């Protein structure tokens, strides 16, 4: 599904190149649940952003579903966002001016899903995540865990083939965090959704099938999780 070959990324500051990613080469197959780990500043978020096509690598080749991302047109990239990629953020990033239901419905609007189907899909997912009672509340009326549930519901509602999550539980208490991880695992195993998450927690990482250890922009270790 994803092929990275020799990805490099640096920021120039007064002529000095600060490398954030170096010689990153790896493959991620459909149905994998990958955790990216590493100390702060290692380049985890940058890697995830590259994977999510939010940032361009300086060198190297990135193929997403067989297509060279650097050659993708803007409109094609947006199509990928609409149909294949779901994002989950550490800071949840819900739209403050929209209710829970509206936040979840938003991607369907961009996907041009019809009104009736939108309603039923939103209702479905609210039901599945046990947040029906909260659907008319605004994000600031929810706890962090609830907000992240909504964030994940929003990422899922468009039925993406891959979810990119940057420290999805970084702001949560451990019990809430484990709930989210259970949810990810279930999505991965039951629906076959590919998941790539950034995490600091060893425990969270064990929910996945594979761990990439990143240090100073270099993949130091690529280990499979034993179950």
């Amino acid at each position, binding site marked *: 599904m994803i092929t990275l070959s020799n990805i490099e990324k640096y920021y120039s500051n007064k002529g000095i190149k600060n490398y954030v990613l170096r010689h990153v080469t790896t493959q991620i197959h459909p149905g994998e649940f990958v955790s990216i780990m590493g100390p702060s500043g290692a380049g985890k978020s940058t890697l995830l952003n590259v994977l999510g096509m*939010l940032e361009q690598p300086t060198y190297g080749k990135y193929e997403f579903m067989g297509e060279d991302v650097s050659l993708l047109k803007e409109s094609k990239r947006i199509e990928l966002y609409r149909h294949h990629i779901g994002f989950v*953020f550490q800071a949840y*990033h819900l*739209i403050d001016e*929209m209710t829970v239901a509206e936040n979840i*419905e*938003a991607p369907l609007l961009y996907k041009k899903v019809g009104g009736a189907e939108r309603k039923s899909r939103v209702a479905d997912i609210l039901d599945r995540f046990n947040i029906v009672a909260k659907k008319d509340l605004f994000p600031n009326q929810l706890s962090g865990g609830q907000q992240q549930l909504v964030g994940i519901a929003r990422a899922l509602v468009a039925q993406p083939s891959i979810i990119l999550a940057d420290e999805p539980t970084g702001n949560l208490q451990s019990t809430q965090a484990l709930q989210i991880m259970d949810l990810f695992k279930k999505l991965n195993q039951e629906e076959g959704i590919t998941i790539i998450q950034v995490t600091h927690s060893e425990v969270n990482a064990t929910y996945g099938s594979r761990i990439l250890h990143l240090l100073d922009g270099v993949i130091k270790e690529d280990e499979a999780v034993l179950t």
Partner: protein
Amino acid sequence: MFKLNLKIALRNLKRNFVISMINIGGLSIALAAFILIVLYVNYETSYDKHNPNYENIYIVGRDLKDFKTNFTPPPLAEIIEQNCPEVALVGKMTPSNLEFPLISDAGRIYIKNTMVMNFNAAKIFDLHPQGGLKQPQGEIERLYYLNEASMRTLFPNKKDSMPELVLMGGKTLGLTAPIQGKIVPNPHSNLQFDGVAIGNNLGVAEGFGFPNYYTYIQVKPGTDIKALEAKIDRLMKAGMIKEKIDMGSLKNERVFLDPLANLHLKPQAGNDTNYKVVMALFILSMLIVVIACINFTNLTIAQANKRAKEVGIKKVLGSYRQLLTMQFITEILIQCVLSMLLALMLAELFMPTFNNLFEVPLSLAAGAEELYWMLPLILLIVTFIAGVYPALILSGFKPALVLKGNFEAGLQTSWIRKGLLVVQFSIAVIFIAGILIVNRQVEYLHTEDTGFEANQVLVIKNQMMYNKPEVFATFRDKVMKINGVKSATVANVVPGGEQTGSNGYTVEGREALLDFIDVDYDYFETLGIKLKSGRTFSKEFKSDTLNAAIINETAAAKYGLLDPVGKTIRGCNIDYKIIGVIKDFKSQGFEAAVQPTIYAMKNPCGNPRLSIMLKVDAAQMSAVLAALKAQWSGINRLDGEDFRYDFLDDLYGRLFKKQEQLKAVFFTASMLTVFIAVLGLFAFAKIMTSNRRKEIAVRKVLGASDFQVLKLLNSSFLWMLLIANVLAWPLVYLLARTWLDTFAYRVELSVVPFALAGVISLLLAVITVSLQATKAVQANPAAVLKHE
């Protein structure tokens, strides 16, 4: 999608209520001012536009080199009629300023402004008197019509449309005239009157030597005006040569055609000050809107931080940039629509005040036709100016940057916002300095020496011509018997904007055009005009009533005379002896320079002397008025029963009315602009300090004093203010120069208004910013940092 975006827009409005209200409120105030002024400009520039032949009507004027006039001799109309087939109608009319009473059984009126016109003139001006426009019979018949108020006073119970007889000019005179009915002058026309007299032809006995008529022509569509102008010029000169009039000055004379569209604001025979004022107002109103737009843009961008996250998220959810741009433009459009609605309400609210000030009958309903297409257009333009830039900025945010957190939208756009703020400050400074300068000039008009004393001078409107000093002497004797009357005189005009005539006069072989004022004894004494050399008219010199003349300084300068007294000045077939030179006085106000003028007691070419002036002792004014009222018919038997008067200082004061109006408008416009600019600054400071709350808290934790933080917050604004002042000053200088140049007499520009504008703008800014900043500075840093 649209519905959702609409919801978001409304929720955002609610969330940022204060800022939104400042945004919408500021814009609506500006738009209200704009609407009012557009209506006004439209009104001022469309005089007579209702006339179906608006485009084809011209007045025939004469350029006499020294000045231009619309007065033409009466035979001109006939020769145009006979020789110019391209002219459809030729009308002539003459204003009769003789004030006389009309008396019926029910009441009496004083009619002042009668327009005597021929039938074709009435047709050209599309007049519709009661019973329709009728052709008068024969050469002598005049059809009289009066305005509505007069008709109501004279014939309160009149139902039919039959002519009614009235007594004319006092009961003792026994003259009667039939009044055909009422006529309503369109207030939106150049042609204004209290009544009209329509005849078949006018001035039949007068030749080319009597330029006392307005000649209007209505040309056939498609006529070559330049060619017609030249043709009429030739006809006019041929006519004058035939009558052997003014042969010498003919080559300097030229006929011009001035379109009806120009007559109200920029007549060739007159000045275009009114036009300039109207245009200046229009520009002012646009500036106000621009300031409000800048506010809008600035505030929207300054709030971008709050919207950046939304943009980032929507983009990763699969939104196109165009979609987001549209969303923001729609949001701004909604705010603009709200502002427009509010503006219409404000305009309606302030319409009566505005109408009062400008003496116009504007209304939203009447202007609806123009506003109908104009308002949506303005709405679009304002939305475009205020909205497109922020929409592009907002929709352009990169999600990777925004979603990483600690993102400052301000950084990328700050120089543009600062630039806009500087522009806004500059405009505000222009207005502040403008107010100060306008105030100084208007003050000057009130306090500066006019060269004569208008106080305690009564002007009596009178219908008896006192052209002969011996006739006036009896009047003077009677009036001087009243205790408190210091002096009495009569003249053809009073100082206060009335135009007198002019004629060619020759001294030592040099000819020049002088204004003539026909006076009686004690004219200069009554008006307190100072003598420069020689003497004034005196009963001790018998010849004073025959051939003595007094000229003013400007006239002496015009002839280059160093010692004019004793010299001979020839005009109107009389050799006058100059007996004195008076100091110039500003009889026409401060805009026009003093004209070279000659004063004489005998002037066969002059105008009727109807304006009696009495200098009265201040303490006895009311007693004098009472006595005059009681004894009037005995003192001035031929004037009729009523004693009617004005105070000269009131009449003269009217010359400044326009400046007063201008000052009032300018003041209001400036206040609005400064207010809107301050509002903008206020909101801007509010957003800035809230964006910097964390920084402020950290600085305080690190040990900065409140004052140091306040200084820090103010300093960035002060720099902008300084630049704004430096940019504004040259502009103020240019604008003020241009305006002051419309005055012949004016104050000198000093640095004071500039410096003062700088200080005032500085104070306003510091107060506004500090009001916001103190709140942030006083916040507990621990609380702020915990929340971050």
